[in-house]
């Protein structure tokens, strides 16, 4: 049965069709949510919310893009909004930690390349990070990214280029790793 039939049945409330749609797309949605969140709990929350919203709004899906692309638009919106909330909360926690650690004079260990890269990706602006993670980490095309983020494919390319430039700058200490 193709996806159009599944969508028709899911709109009519067929639980088996809903499950089939979930099975077809959940891996990619969860992977993207996990890459963006870096936490299993958050990734599960975002994935669940994505499917709950998608099934609730299935009547609004007109088929202008593929169901997968539409689903990813929801997944990105849920994940990025969720991460904004988490970030605000974590900032408060970090302030508390900083206050607690005040006066600590120990030397922090120099992070290795993997840690530095992760920190540099985390530090990218949300839009740049989403484009970078989707394209360079998860292999989405610029067309898919553009539709999911509501931007032109050319804008996606430009943002990827700027994200890479920032990462290159952040990793300049490790230049030998890629020039060798």
């Amino acid at each position, binding site marked *: 049965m193709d996806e159009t039939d599944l969508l028709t049945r899911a709109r009519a409330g067929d639980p088996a069709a809903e499950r089939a749609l979930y099975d077809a797309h959940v891996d990619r949605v969860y992977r993207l949510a996990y890459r963006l969140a870096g936490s*299993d709990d958050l990734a599960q929350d975002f994935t669940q919310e994505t499917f709950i919203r998608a099934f609730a709004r299935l009547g609004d899906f007109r088929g202008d893009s593929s169901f997968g692309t539409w689903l990813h638009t929801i997944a990105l919106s849920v994940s990025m909004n969720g991460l904004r909330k988490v970030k605000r909360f974590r900032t408060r926690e970090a302030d508390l930690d900083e206050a607690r650690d005040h006066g600590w004079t120990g030397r922090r260990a120099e992070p290795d390349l993997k840690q530095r890269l992760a920190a540099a*990706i985390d530090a990218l602006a949300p839009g740049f990070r989403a484009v970078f993670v989707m394209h360079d980490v998860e292999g989405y095309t610029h067309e898919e990214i553009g539709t999911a983020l509501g931007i032109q494919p050319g804008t996606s390319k430009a943002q990827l280029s700027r994200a890479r430039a920032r990462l290159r700058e952040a990793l300049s200490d490790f230049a030998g790793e890629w020039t060798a």
Partner: protein
Amino acid sequence: MSDDKFDEFLQRAARSYHEPPATPREDMWTRIEAERRVRRLVAPTQRGRWWVTASALAATLLLGIALGTWMESGKGAPSALPAPTVAVAPSATAAPGASTRTPVRPAAPVVAAARPPASNAAGSLTFDAAAADHLGRAEALLTTFNTESANGNIDPQIGTWAGDLLTTTRLLLDSPRARDPRTRKLLSDLEVVLAQIAQLKSQPDSRSDEFEIIEQAVRSQNMMTRLRDATPPGSAALASGS
């Protein structure tokens, strides 16, 4: 050094960035189904009246627990039990259009809660039914809160609903039947969260921070899973009065 070399290196190195584990398909599907079931019960079309119904049912439940506690202490005469009407329900009195004496149509577990227990075993069953019913309502409230806070638009009446549940939570905790340590811990944790929701300030600026604190408390204490585990299937239906 060329850009191409760096891009290749970056793509290779970035594969380890937040590398996802295997997808927990079944776990997530189970929770999606449960969440959708609850959300359907508190659908937006019902929002105009859900809190009136919920408040009335909560008040009836409160009456049942109070009667159970009263009889447990040996002061009550079963034959003197009144019909299940709400004499003074704080929430019902605040409801637009609700009178101070609101007749209610109690659902099955609530009727059980109001009936005189014939023995200690029956008393335990009464408490268990009341607790399960109450936890089902709490689950519905937290789901509604979660949904509405995600949209940044919380119905102000949710504080009233939380206040009613808070009173019932305290009554359950004070009941001599509340002996199970797991239930007691759940009720204690729930009490704190309900108190936070009941005290939500009306100023929009301060509310978004408060939402986050409450959501974080619910998440860190695994509250929704614990409530679902403690609630038998069907209790959520009561939560919305359907």
